[in-house]
């Protein structure tokens, strides 16, 4: 049994115990609630806690920023969540005066953002004034007099000459003064007689950018000095607030407890909104895994007298959500199934069928004893050390098991950190060489054959699973004619291909068998069509599927490619390290550094490649034969947290 049986139930209780029942359901994580689809009465307005969450989140992220705590590299991938008891969360939210902490953090936050705004305004003003620092006059004097005008602005340095020429030729009564400049831009003041009409044309022609300086009693350099002083003051104030904020850093974990406590309240409220109510009772319907039902009804009966659990018949066409429940051996491989989608009604769970193939392919792609060993040790360490979500746990177990399998495949392919086995002294070296059964580098064609052979095996197995599931649904005819015939045809055809290449005597028999298979396929695949021509055409066209199978099979050749990538890059790392070993004095140091960094790098990209490509072979090549993944996920009403894990 790999998909848990589901039971649709309704929990009915007196309205006074609603909250208590919901708390028990939330703690148990067994009910996938369904909407009662009735208009809720007005008391179900949005919960009071909801607006709190973003405020708390903002405060927490601000404190984290101020505390200057650095995340470890691994935390970028697997965020750490502290495991805490629910009672601790509740107690903290009651005892700890988080409201006052929150409000003071909030006011400091708004002060900080005001200061930041001020800071950026001041900096902007400074940037405008900076080019004009050399100007000796008061800024407010930069305006027109009775007869003359002046305009301040900047122009591209390339166009300076053009500007000067235009001015002197078109407006004789004009002057230009360069205040400052760089190769890109020149800042100038242009004086001209007030009635010159052409000035605007000239300025727009050379893309002159007018600048509006503040009308101040002071000169630009005096203004700049004032701005610098205020900048310093603002920064000082900023620093004071931040050091004030730092005093709140010790409250960080308590605040995150409070956040997650109220988060649970919101989650509960959401479930509560799904419940239907009458005057004095309420009911919440949903799906429960069958094996958990007795425990749940027992618990509810013992703790709350005014409540009952009723089994409900599902409506027509209503499918239960899917919960995978595999034996411990297959458990981690659920991660691969989940990438594609969960099995829907009437589908088999592909986790078991894919597991051994996935493991083997992963190991073949990585195929190095040393890398396998490191991978399993590291994933074991993190499995122990980190508190993980369900998905993270599956992934790490998968990597751990994959590492172990890699050790075995590594022995067979004779790869140990890419070391040349011929150079390992006796007795270890010759022994390891004897253990080596395949060598992808010296003899890639045989490993290619192995990869493709395994691919053919998995594809035929996929068709076989499809046949079995059809037979279980009592569709014997479809199972045998659609899948059984194809298995027969593919087996005899590939057998014929291999035996005729090897010039075996029985290739004749196999060729007759594959022709018989093809004939049967042509005769049967069109059986659903109405007239005889369509039957014939569809039958013949069905043989086209062979090319699809051929393509699928060849896709497994990637196993060889990835196997070679790992071992050759490992070898290259060793060769480069050996070359640097000859560098005088620091040679050995360099060698060790290159070995460590190089092999870690190769390990990481090889594991990534092995994971992705073996998964792809399952999802595309294997699942395509029998699996749709049309199921909905079983999402029990339970705890959802952001910062901690509720034990």
């Amino acid at each position, binding site marked *: 049994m790999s998909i848990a049986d589901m039971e649709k139930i309704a929990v009915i209780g007196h309205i006074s115990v609603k909250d208590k029942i919901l708390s028990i359901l939330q703690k148990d994580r067994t009910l996938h609630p369904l909407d009662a689809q009735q208009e809720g009465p007005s008391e179900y307005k949005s919960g009071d806690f909801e607006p709190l969450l973003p405020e708390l989140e903002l405060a927490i992220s601000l404190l984290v920023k101020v505390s200057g705590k650095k995340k470890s590299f691994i935390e970028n991938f697997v965020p750490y969540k502290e495991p805490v008891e629910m009672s601790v969360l509740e107690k903290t939210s009651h005892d700890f005066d988080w409201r006052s902490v929150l409000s003071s953090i909030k006011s400091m936050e708004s002060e900080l953002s005001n200061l930041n705004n001020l800071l950026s305004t001041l900096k902007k003003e400074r940037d405008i004034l900076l080019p004009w620092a050399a100007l000796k006059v008061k800024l407010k004097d930069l305006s027109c007099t009775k007869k003359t005008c002046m305009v301040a602005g900047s122009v591209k340095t390339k166009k300076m000459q053009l500007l000067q020429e235009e001015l002197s030729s078109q407006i004789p009564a004009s002057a230009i003064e360069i205040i400052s400049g760089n190769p890109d831009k020149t800042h100038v003041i242009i004086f001209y007689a007030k009635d010159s009409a052409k000035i605007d044309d000239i300025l727009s022609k050379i893309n002159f950018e007018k600048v509006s300086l503040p009308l101040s009693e002071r000169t630009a350099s005096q203004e700049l000095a004032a701005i610098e002083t205020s900048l310093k003051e603002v920064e000082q104030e900023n620093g004071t607030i931040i050091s004030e904020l730092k005093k709140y850093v010790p409250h960080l974990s308590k605040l995150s407890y409070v956040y997650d406590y109220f988060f649970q309240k919101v989650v509960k409220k959401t479930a509560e909104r799904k419940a239907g109510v009458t005057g004095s009772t309420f009911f919440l319907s949903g799906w429960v895994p069958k094996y958990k039902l007795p425990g749940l009804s027992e618990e509810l009966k013992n703790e709350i007298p005014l409540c009952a659990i009723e089994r409900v018949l599902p409506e027509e066409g209503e499918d239960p959500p899917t919960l995978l429940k595999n034996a411990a051996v297959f458990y981690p491989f659920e991660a691969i199934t989940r*990438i594609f989608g969960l099995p829907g009604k009437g589908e088999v769970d592909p986790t078991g069928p894919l597991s051994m193939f996935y493991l083997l392919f992963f190991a073949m792609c990585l195929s190095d004893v040393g890398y396998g060993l490191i991978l399993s040790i590291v994933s074991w360490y993190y499995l122990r050390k980190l508190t993980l979500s369900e998905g993270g746990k599956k992934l790490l177990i998968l990597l751990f098991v994959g590492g172990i399998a890699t050790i075995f495949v590594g022995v067979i392919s004779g790869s140990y950190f890419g070391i040349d086995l011929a150079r390992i002294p006796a007795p270890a070296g010759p022994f390891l060489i004897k253990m080596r059964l395949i060598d992808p580098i010296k003899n890639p064609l045989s490993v290619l054959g192995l990869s493709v052979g395994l691919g053919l095996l998995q594809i035929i197995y996929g068709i076989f699973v499809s046949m079995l599931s059809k037979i279980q649904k009592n569709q014997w005819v479809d199972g045998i004619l659609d899948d059984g015939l194809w298995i027969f045809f593919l087996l005899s055809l590939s057998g014929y291909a291999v035996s005729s290449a090897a010039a075996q005597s029985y290739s004749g028999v196999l060729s007759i068998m594959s022709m018989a298979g093809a004939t049967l396929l042509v005769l049967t695949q069109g059986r659903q069509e109405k007239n005889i021509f369509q039957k014939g055409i569809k039958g013949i066209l069905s043989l086209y599927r062979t090319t699809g199978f051929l393509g699928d099979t060849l*896709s497994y*050749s990637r196993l060889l*490619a990835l196997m*070679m990538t790992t071992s050759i890059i490992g070898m290259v790392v060793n060769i480069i390290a050996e070359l640097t070993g000859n560098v005088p004095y620091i040679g050995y140091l360099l060698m060790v550094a290159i070995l460590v960094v190089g092999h870690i790098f190769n390990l990481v990209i090889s594991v990534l490649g092995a994971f992705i490509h073996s998964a792809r072979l399952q999802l595309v090549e294997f699942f395509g034969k029998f699996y749709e993944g049309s199921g909905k996920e079983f999402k029990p009403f339970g705890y959802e947290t952001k910062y901690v894990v509720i034990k």
Partner: protein
Amino acid sequence: MDWGIGLAIAGAAFAAFLGASGSAWGISIAAEAAGGVITEDPEKFGRVLVMLALPGTQGFYGFLGAFYIMMKINLLGGGMAVPFSAGLQLFFAALPLGIAGLVSGYYQGRASVAGILLIAKRPEEMGKAIILPAMVETYAVLGLLATIILVSSIKI
């Protein structure tokens, strides 16, 4: 003049530099998208990093192919006499890897961008996002395989 070994080295060089260029191109496209996503949510760094590393394999395949050709002509061990025809064969054998690596690196980068945008909105669907660019990579792997099989069957 020894054209044989020159052509063989040219093949190895083409495989390495085309593959590496494809990867650099693809990763840079993906990194631009990743930068945007990280600006919005720095927490997604880890997931996004995996996505943008995906088009990086072409560079390694190219390097690997180059090394395979170098081993074939024993270049690290001082080199051997390579006839002109064999050198030409090695050169052509390197092309599937190099060209498929260049083109697929770019397009895998674009597929990675799609995956990164998917993660930005639905971080829980990382598994699906990671498969999309892997579909493109298949053809770089096939190019590598073609080169390896060709090189290993060339007789010098």
